[in-house]
């Protein structure tokens, strides 16, 4: 089986995933991705009738056991300062981040 995750695809994935990797990490991760895809390949051999639906989760949720959606009500946050204090950098109750450069969508 040829490598499905080529170096070019890998670089693209890493960019999409917003990850900085060392060369050693990149080598290990690309190898493991390809190894896992070999295991996943087994799925392609399973005969699946056209009417087999997807299961997003195993347990069915009939209405009788499904909680109704909560009312869309405003609930005051009593510890906003505590939550903002978790941010690595904040000022005047706002989270501080570096510049977001202007980009033009192509």
């Amino acid at each position, binding site marked *: *089986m040829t490598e499905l*995750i080529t170096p070019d*695809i*890998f670089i693209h*994935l*890493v960019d*999409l*995933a*917003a*990850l*900085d*990797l060392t060369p050693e*990490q990149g080598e*290990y*991760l690309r190898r*493991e*991705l390809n*190894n*896992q895809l*070999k*295991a*996943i*390949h*087994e*799925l*392609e051999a*399973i005969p*699946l009738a056209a009417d*087999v*639906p*997807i*299961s*997003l*989760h*195993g*347990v069915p*949720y009939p209405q*009788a*056991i*499904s*909680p109704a*959606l*909560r009312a869309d009500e405003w609930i005051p946050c009593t*510890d906003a300062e*505590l*939550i903002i204090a*978790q*941010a*690595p*950098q904040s000022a005047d109750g706002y*989270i501080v*981040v*570096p*510049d*977001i*450069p202007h980009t033009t969508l192509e």
Partner: protein
Amino acid sequence: MELCDLSAYELSQLIHQRKASAVDVLKAHLKRIEAVDGRPGSLDAGEITAEDKKKVHAFITLTPERAQAQAEAVDAQLAAGEDPGLLAGVPFTVKDIFCVKGTPSTAASRILANFNAPYTATSVERLEAAGGIMLGKVNLDEFTHGSSSESSAFQPCPRNPWNTARVVGGSSGGSAASVAANEAPLSLGTDTAGSIRQPAAFCGVVGVKPTYGRVSRYGLIAFGSSLDCPGPIGRNITDAAMMLQVMAGPDRRDSTAALKPVDDYLSRLEAGVRGKRIGLSPDYFRIVYPTASGEYAEKAVPPDYEKAVRQAAQLLAQMGAEIVEDVPMPNTRYGIPAYFVISRVEAASNLHRFDGVKYGYRTAQVVDELKTLYRKSRGEGLGLQPKLRILMGMYVSAAQYSEQYYRRALRVRTLIRNDFEQVFDPAGPYRLDALLTPTTPTPAFPIGEVYGDTVLMQYADQLTVSANHAGTPGLSLPAGLDSEGLPIGIQLLGADFSEANLLQIGRAYEMATANATWRLVKPAVLS
């Protein structure tokens, strides 16, 4: 016999009867932790010393002051004639994947090492409301991504109390280790592919993966949102039943917590197994896995393991159960390949929130734009296993591959679910009350032997993962020791919301083996 060697049930009785105080019980457990646990897991821990290798290292964070205040409150309630609850004064540990207000909630990751949760998970809230005493947060695979607890960013990782050269399993490894070493009678874990049952089996304790939706996931840092299940780990069935009783039930803060009323897990615990139909499946006596050449190999579980299951079946039959042989579960072998896809897609989605902006780790490097901040913070803060899951999740859910991988895996999940529906269908040919299987295909393996090979590591979960796909409950309980003195776990699998039934069968087996010689053997760290 110290107080910390008693079960949760026994401690609760003693404390309720005021024959022991919650404070004394807490002291006994802290003393045990000091004796066996060694240094807690930490970032940049340096060399693992010879002394480290003799200890359990279950904990990341111990919270003795918080526990002391809780224990004093329980004693005060009892002195005032009030009942603190079912778990009055019973200590428990919490896998550090649950948020607990005011404590570090690290997910065993550098990226959350400095995160103090601003709220408490429903499970923990309910355990504490029932009088339970939280001792601290225990170690795990980073973000629960593993089956050995070795991938934790907080080292030393937990070591198996039965043989400290062996892994504890994972990802709830610190949980199982803390219970096996009598550092706590109970621990709160999570199970996404077997992460409660597999470490419970490796450490010789009881672990329950409840039905998906039976226990709220509120406050659990998510891995695979359609698979994750919080559940109890204890040293016996009664303790696990007590813990589940307290945690289970609807929760307005989790829309997947089912509205179904919670059964009484304790009142019929010793009602026996007469008339119950218990199945054995050849598909659970072997594993199928890919070899380095890309071929598939089939391997039987070790003879000790099949023997343990068959002996358990024989004992249950002697107590009146009907054993049904050759139950087909043909899609069991596809559990891991499907899991490689589904769990990675869900993990990638869940892990995007860790970006160095709102909380957690931010790179110390000076960066001039936000995207660079994301890349550097995530690159430095996340370990290899979360990175691997993000990358795989993004690949298999990409528009051009989604039909081939993600949607196909979700359809295979339907086949796996169908296996369970057919054998538990009360009107079907099998009409099972439970399926009895080995929990794992191997005993606890040596530390360092498998870690790094992510395919082989994942196949440690082949006998447990199907229940996560199906959403059905599973229970692992100790069933002896192998030729090397390592625990063997057997597993009971059941229909949706059949936890009471599984606990009842497990308790029957426990009573039938109460005098077995292997039950007299204790973990090495306790001898």
